[in-house]
């Protein structure tokens, strides 16, 4: 009866309103946004309102040996928040205050449940932005995106979440609260624990406060749409733009399958007679934007593409909303959407595009590829039907080949979605067994009883 006792203790410490146990509710925390993964109901969901309550949850979990799965909005794409061993889902959604915006230090301090877009809206009046920009920016939480080290559409120029996290407050597996990093631009004290916890996917500690770096909003930007009748031309154009020393804020690719689907859904006037399109945005000081946009136009022409520029904010917004809709729109075609996150050095983008196209043909699968071409981060998205087991077998085989191809091109398993459950079996391919052992040692040191988000990234056995 230890689960019932644990729930009783949680109610006592957090109040009844912060402890959810109805079966109907637990069902709604048995999944995240990842397809083709087992679902599992937790035993209880808690919604702590402050760090003290988080500590209490951790202590009760320890006492009763129950796993804890931190969860933000559950928009993650690697199974990272699925409570596969039952136990406690810890929702951070009630810890959703922006604690401080410090324009003189260019930082913001937030609780983990703050929605990324809400932070951006709050800093906009100061002429600042928080650059990480995942596709789910309007729904995902800061805590979740730090834990997953999410990337997004501006990764090429601005990097991923880890490049903006300056300080963290974390509750460890033993209930201790630690704070690392802070507002100083320079901080080289000891091991870089801020980076360790960023992207740790809730397996090493529970993030309860985050200090992030903000940057001045770019003064100007120019958004362009380029079309190509050959996939290879689009890939080569990406490499050539970077080769011209132009670093666009965003350089996105959508292949024919994706373009057709998005257009069918969003009706934004995307051309459907192309092999691929690129969405390119350069930003910064007006003069620089002008010359960079000119360089981009030249490169596109050289690679047999056509290009048009968004004339106003409305046109720009239309293009971006089409890009943001790419993944979910693909989901309209078939019921099961398996999105991958294969990432290669950007010089290899053409090779990767062609490999994915070939894999789709060989396995007779519909694959829509879109993604952050500029940073080499592609999202080959396989459209299937989970009810068709024979098809799903082909999907799984194709996914493995995609990963092998990415790694053989010098790439990585995950550009921005993390490892979670979905990719942990492939980790040795990238970092070797000894590399995986180091991850295990870290996990062992910080969470010896394997209570924090067990079964994600590495297994402790």
């Amino acid at each position, binding site marked *: 009866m230890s689960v019932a006792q644990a729930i009783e203790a949680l109610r006592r410490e957090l109040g009844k309103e912060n402890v959810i146990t109805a079966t*109907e*509710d637990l*069902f*709604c925390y048995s*999944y995240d946004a990842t397809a083709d993964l087992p679902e599992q109901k937790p035993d209880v969901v808690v919604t702590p309102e402050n760090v003290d309550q988080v500590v209490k949850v951790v202590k009760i979990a320890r006492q009763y040996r129950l796993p804890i799965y931190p969860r933000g909005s559950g928009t993650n794409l690697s199974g990272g928040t699925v409570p596969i061993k039952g136990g406690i889902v810890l929702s951070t959604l009630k810890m959703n205050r922006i604690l401080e915006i410090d324009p003189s230090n260019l930082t913001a301090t937030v609780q983990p449940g703050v929605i990324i877009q809400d932070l951006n809206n709050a800093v906009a009046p100061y002429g600042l932005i928080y650059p990480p920009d995942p596709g789910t920016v309007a729904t995902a939480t800061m805590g979740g995106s730090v834990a997953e080290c999410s990337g997004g559409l501006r990764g090429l120029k601005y990097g991923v979440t880890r490049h903006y996290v300056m300080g963290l407050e974390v509750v460890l597996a033993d209930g201790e609260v630690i704070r690392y990093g802070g507002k100083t631009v320079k901080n080289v004290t000891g091991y870089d624990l801020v980076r360790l916890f960023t992207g740790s996917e809730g397996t090493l500690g529970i993030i309860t406060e985050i200090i992030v770096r903000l940057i001045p909003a770019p003064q100007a930007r120019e958004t362009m749409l380029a079309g190509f009748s050959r996939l290879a031309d689009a890939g080569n154009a990406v490499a050539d733009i970077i080769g011209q020393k132009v670093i666009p804020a965003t350089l996105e690719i959508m292949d024919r399958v994706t373009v057709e689907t998005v257009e069918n859904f969003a009706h934004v006037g995307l051309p459907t007679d192309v092999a691929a399109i690129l969405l390119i945005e350069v930003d910064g000081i007006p003069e620089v934007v002008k010359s960079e946009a000119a360089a981009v136009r030249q490169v596109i022409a050289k690679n047999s593409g056509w290009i048009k520029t968004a004339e106003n904010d409305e046109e720009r917004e239309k293009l971006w909303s089409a890009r943001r809709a790419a993944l979910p729109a693909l*989901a309209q075609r078939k019921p099961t*959407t398996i999105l991958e996150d294969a990432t290669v050095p950007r010089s290899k983008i053409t090779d990767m595009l062609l490999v994915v196209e070939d894999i789709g043909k060989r396995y007779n699968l519909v694959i829509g590829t879109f993604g952050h071409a500029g940073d080499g981060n592609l999202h080959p998205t396989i459209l299937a039907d989970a009810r068709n087991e024979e098809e799903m077998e082909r999907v799984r085989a194709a996914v493995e080949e995609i990963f092998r191809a990415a790694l053989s091109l010098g790439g990585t398993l995950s550009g921005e979605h993390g490892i979670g459950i979905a990719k942990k079996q492939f980790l040795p391919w990238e970092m070797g067994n000894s590399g995986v052992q180091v991850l295990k040692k870290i996990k062992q040191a910080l969470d010896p009883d394997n209570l924090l988000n067990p079964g994600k990234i590495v297994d402790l056995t």
Partner: protein
Amino acid sequence: MSIFDGLAAVEEEILKCMKCGNCQAVCPLYQESRREPAVARGKIRLAAAILEGKLEPTDGLAERFDLCLTCLACVASCPSGVKVDRIILAARTALTQKKGLPFIKKAVFTGLSRPRLFDLGVKTAARLQGLLFKNIEPGKMQPRFPIGLELRRIVPPLAPVPFRDQVAEKHAVERPVATVAFFTGCMTNYLYPEIGLAALRVLKAHGVDVIIPRLQHCCGAPILYSGAADMALKMARSHVDLFSSIQADAIITVCGTCGKAFKHLYPELLEDVPGYSERAREVAAKILDITQFLHKLPFNPELFRAPELAVTYHQPCHLGRGLGVVQEPLSIIRSIPGVNYLPLMEPARCCGNAGSFSLTHYDLSYQILTRKLKDIEDTGAQLVVTGCPACRMHLTDGLVKKQMPQKVVHTVELLASSLEEK
């Protein structure tokens, strides 16, 4: 098979949900509660669990499915194109079929589904309402005792004489440009006869013959949205009988929910009913919101003049996202000489009323309304115009409680009050 036959009919919709969570950004209920069962993604998972036989039809499940405003915001923003409202209605119907309706709802709906009894009941209530309600100020009452209604709720008094009893059945003008049948809806008939009178005046001023069929009654939407499809089916049938027998160019509604019931729900309810499916579609094809109809006529702004008036517009969910009537009301309001239109930041955000939701979940409903009130305040408008009697009631409730000076009227009331006497 229609959604009113149960969840199997929406299996494909359920499978379409890829759990991306985009619905969280637009769901007014989720934004208040921040709990997964409150948002479409969670409810779709619950519907799937029922289908898979993993969940029994419990009270708890019915409560979760009650937690939806059917405001359609998730449907409009879902890139996978999941028709969430269909899943919600199918689930509510399936649950009601298994569990039956709660006692109060059953009593009320039985009344609603029997037009003559309902009419008599409401008229009796209109005479007795002073015993149950106290007047706060003209047009605004509050319940005196717990009577199953939320005690804090401010409601308009029942009209001493319902709209349809105040006016003739047929209204002819000289040289009519069109003939319309007017479906009044219950709120206009019993609570806001002034909306009905305004519609009549404006239509006549535009040279339109108006028929207000005597035998019409509740559209059935409240019943259908509660999952009692069998009762609603009878109501749909009687309205299809009634309106298909009338020679009219259009059937006019002044409430998006009534319009949506005729336009979308009747054809689906009557899909497999012999002798009805085709007529239901014909009736549906004639349904127009009054602003749509006037806009097409075309609307003649020269008939109108308002004193200098700062006006904002709240878009009712079922009118805007439900029937796609977004531009017509704005175009009409803005064309009235003297009107200064000041848009809301989020004109299409649900006000929180959502039919009986505001009665059963008053606190949540009021939280959602609070955001709307703030938005109204920020515009600086003196008058709030909306196209739905229920939104009008809810907005009035909030404005009175917050002691805000703005009044709320239906679009057609703004028109009637700006009509220049000739």
